């Protein structure tokens, strides 16, 4: 590309082949039920905690200059908030490294009736540039997986309400009978 009249060469290398993308992220979820038809959504009761674990980033630390895993969440279209992330950076050896992430959303941390979008990203930087002094240029590949969570309020089901009302009515009848007997 050309920036500020300077040619900046950011080379995606053997980018003609999508096989060099990072592997596809997949989430493992500890709770909830998939439902919804066309775009399936994970339905989660708000009184349940949810542990989200990513699959292993197999390209981590093996390809490119820097690898990164990110786990983000967005509520009803708002900006994404980072839940967890780790970078492996050969420029800064010794940093903490990992090839997967796991995080737990505590019970009642989601709001009933709200929709959430969770995103897992695997990033690999395969080239950097220094044509422009003091400017960091990077070429990177990203493989991203998203899924939706629908938070369901932990309120009694209609059948539960019916059972409670039935029990109250039964007690009322028993009390009335006792009064008549007295």
């Amino acid at each position, binding site marked *: 590309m050309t*920036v500020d009249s300077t040619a900046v060469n950011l080379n995606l290398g053997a*980018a003609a082949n999508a096989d060099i993308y990072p592997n596809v992220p*997949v989430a493992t979820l500890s709770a909830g039920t998939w439902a919804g038809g066309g775009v399936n959504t994970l339905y989660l009761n708000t009184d349940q905690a949810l542990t989200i674990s990513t699959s292993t980033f197999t390209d981590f630390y093996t390809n490119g200059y820097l690898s990164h895993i*990110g786990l983000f969440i967005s509520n009803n279209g708002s900006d994404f908030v980072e839940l967890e992330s780790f970078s492996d950076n050969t420029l800064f050896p010794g940093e903490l490294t990992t090839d997967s992430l796991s995080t737990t959303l505590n019970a009642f941390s989601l709001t009933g009736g709200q929709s959430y979008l969770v995103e897992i*990203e695997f990033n690999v930087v395969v080239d950097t540039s220094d044509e422009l*002094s*003091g*400017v960091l240029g990077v070429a990177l*590949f990203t493989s*991203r997986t998203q899924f939706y969570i629908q938070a369901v309020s932990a309120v009694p089901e209609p059948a539960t309400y019916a059972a409670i009302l039935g029990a109250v009515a039964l007690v009322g009848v028993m009390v009335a009978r006792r009064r008549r007997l007295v």
Partner: protein
Amino acid sequence: MKVRSLFASVIAVGLAAHLSAQIEFISVEKLADHVQTDTGTVTLKTFIAPLAMGQPPVSVPYQFRVHVEGTDLGALATPTFAAPAGSSYLNGTDPILGQMVYNASGDEWGRTFYYGSKYSATG
């Protein structure tokens, strides 16, 4: 933009040596997007690519995103991106050259290009 924050530590090192630079970060990103719809079920997501006037939208699975970020970039000459002939570039009417668009609120230049195939190229 999240990409910039991912590499914030690297940027900081670069700026320490060149505090006067207005352009701070340039990125070329090739993205494959997926959607998970069940336990272990992940499929390639498609985007509705905006095409030239009069052409129907096309669903494509790959994005190619370019960004120039920094401070006071509004006066910068429009950065351009060149994809090679033969790539399945779907934006606009010009299959080769692409001009970035300035976003005043974010003080950045950028554009997303859409590709109908996995093939793309150097930036």
